[in-house]
């Protein structure tokens, strides 16, 4: 069986570590060999962050190179564009349409490319865009963006719905389970 490569990208502090933890554990429980490469330290302070999740019969490299990702799950629009070249030809980008201005844009040294997703779609990339922040707020917390996005991407994995729910129960703190299940469903059914 070939190795499948998933990238989770976003802005430091958006909760990508929890998403990769959930996905990694679930894939291991499904019987795959798994590697998850995280980012700690300096980059977490509002910088661009990327987490790699790879699974298959035997996974060697923990990282993903350009042109190799089957799925990119992006927590923010600009970050999806930043890592678009990592996508395989027939790959899929699941992206939260939320826009978070980076410092060069805030201080007027650069412009935020508002229409970059349309440009990438025109170039033939397969992109599923959704307002995950609005859905997360609907579920009860803006912090659940990560779980909404996992819900949206879930159908791309050969894993039954119930096991995703079980994985959420096993990963998040008990008092947040119901809210996160709701967030997952909103992504899954959107």
């Amino acid at each position, binding site marked *: 069986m070939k190795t499948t490569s998933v990238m989770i990208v976003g802005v430091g502090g958006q909760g990508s570590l929890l998403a990769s933890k959930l996905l990694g554990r679930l894939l*291991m429980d499904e019987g795959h060999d798994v590697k998850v490469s995280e980012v700690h330290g300096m980059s977490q*302070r509002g910088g661009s962050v990327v987490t790699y999740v790879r699974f298959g019969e035997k996974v060697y490299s923990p*990282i993903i*190179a350009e*042109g190799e990702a089957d799925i990119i799950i992006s927590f923010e629009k600009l970050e999806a564009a930043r890592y678009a070249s990592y996508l395989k030809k027939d790959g899929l980008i699941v992206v939260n349409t939320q826009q978070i201005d980076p410092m060069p844009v805030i201080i007027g040294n650069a412009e935020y490319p508002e229409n970059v997703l349309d440009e990438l779609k025109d170039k033939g990339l397969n992109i599923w865009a959704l307002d995950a922040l609005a859905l997360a707020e609907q579920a009860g917390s803006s912090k659940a963006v990560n779980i909404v996005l996992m819900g949206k991407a879930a159908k791309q994995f050969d894993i039954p719905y119930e096991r995703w729910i079980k994985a959420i129960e096993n990963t998040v703190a008990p008092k947040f389970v119901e809210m996160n299940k709701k967030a997952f469903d909103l992504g899954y059914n959107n």
Partner: protein
Amino acid sequence: MKKLMIGNEAVAAGLHDGGLGVVSSYPGTPSTEITEFLSKYDDIHSEWAPNEKVACEVAFGASLAGARSACAMKHVGLNVAADPLFTLSYTGVNGGMVICVADDPAMHSSQNEQDSRHYAIASKVPMLEPADSMEAYTFAKTAFELSEKYDTPVILRMCTRIAHSQSIVETGEKTEAVLKDYEKNPAKYIMMPGNAIKRHPFVEERTLALQELAENCIYNTVEYNSDEIGIITSGCSYLYVKEVLGDKASILKIGMPNPLPVKTIKDFASKVKKLYVIEELDPIIETHVKSLGIEVIGKDKFSILGEFSQRTIAEALGLEVQNGIKADAVIPNRPPMMCAGCPHRGMFYTLAKNKITVHGDIGCYTLGAVPPLSALDSTLCMGASVSGLHGFNAARGTDAEKKSVAVIGDSTFIHSGMTGLVNVAYNATNSTVIILDNSITGMTGHQQNPTTGYNIKGDPAAKVNLEDLCKALGIGRVRVVDPYDLKACETAVKEELAAEEPSVIISRRPCVLLKSVKLEAPLKVDNDKCKSCKRCMGLGCPAISLKDGKAKIDTTLCVGCGVCKQLCAFDAII
């Protein structure tokens, strides 16, 4: 038990299951989690030490006492611990001792990309290097036996991609921690010349014995797949090589980079037509292979800079790689920055506004260098802000003293800033040192330190009073300021720079990310009052941006610190 673990958690589990009794460390990315995970075991004495030298010496003392011991640090931390390391090589151990060091190729969170293998060679200490979490567990666990059998500390080398990658670990039986007998042995443990001179031959004999071991050990493995291509590799480079070539090449995987085997390498080289060494950072293995008179392709194809990936290796080998589709639009960078409400921001704003020369240090506040604040002039290593400022002022005199400061965090000050401050007082420059006291070790992910009043387990502990400490070190003028109060910051900075004696300003407010900090309601902008002067934008706060010419505050990020409000001349921020 099968579990997905980052390499650092696996090291912790391996050390624990290897019978660890005492661990002492200083946090540093990418090594921090080793000690954080160890602190969760109640049968181990774990602690954050003030710096890596102290940590390494604590581990030495525990080993001397008969316990299995460890310390963990990032690569540059080993520079600080190098002093005990080199002589520990001579004393050897009683209980097994493991020094965990994590390199950071590509400098994800570091100031240089030094290769720790040089230290193993220079100090003549064996080094192990795992390639995934399972190996991290096994190598850490077996390192104690190696340490005790060969009477040496053992260095366990990690790198970012191994330390922070999760892979599956199956843990085994725990070796019960044993406290070996302690017997006084001056000839072995008192390293004065008469004794040390007799230990040096032992070190050289030990290296020969370890070289024998290197020829036949669990750490170095050979996969014969091809007589055309042979690759000698180690650590994460091994993973990338396997990803690219699978079973198409023969591979000698080095898990013990010091000392390196001789016979094994000669045998391997003789069985393949073309030999490569693929290793990140410096050509350590390559130089060794070449010293054996073997022709090999190494750094002329595989970079000495940064980290590798399957792609860089495929490209260097002339294999096809896939290119993805890029946007034509310019994608702005997203550099890391100080958080909204970061207490360092008010002080940096004050320093930048007054065009002060700022000697920086290592921590979150290194981000004061980033635009628009651009407040820093230098950052070298832990503690260098204070000593560097003193040297700067000694060279440039009164003019410099009136407009230059050092900034250093609470944990970094304890680590190695206080010795620099003693020097300021003792050798008398009118230097002004600002301690950015955010009541936690921030950048590495919130570790306690001697100024916080809590230990590694979160239990109450002795708390260093920074004001008293600075006074005891010989500084007469010590004052505390709240960095959220811009006026107070400016007054303090101006008065202390003008003072005719050394001074310390403690800029004190806890990190906003601490759970104990009560956040204020987010602020907002009154669009009718905002005159688009952009003064608030000068703070570089991620919560403030410009929308349709007016300032806009992101209420999901704003914590109501109120610093921007003090800047607004039109009372538009409410």
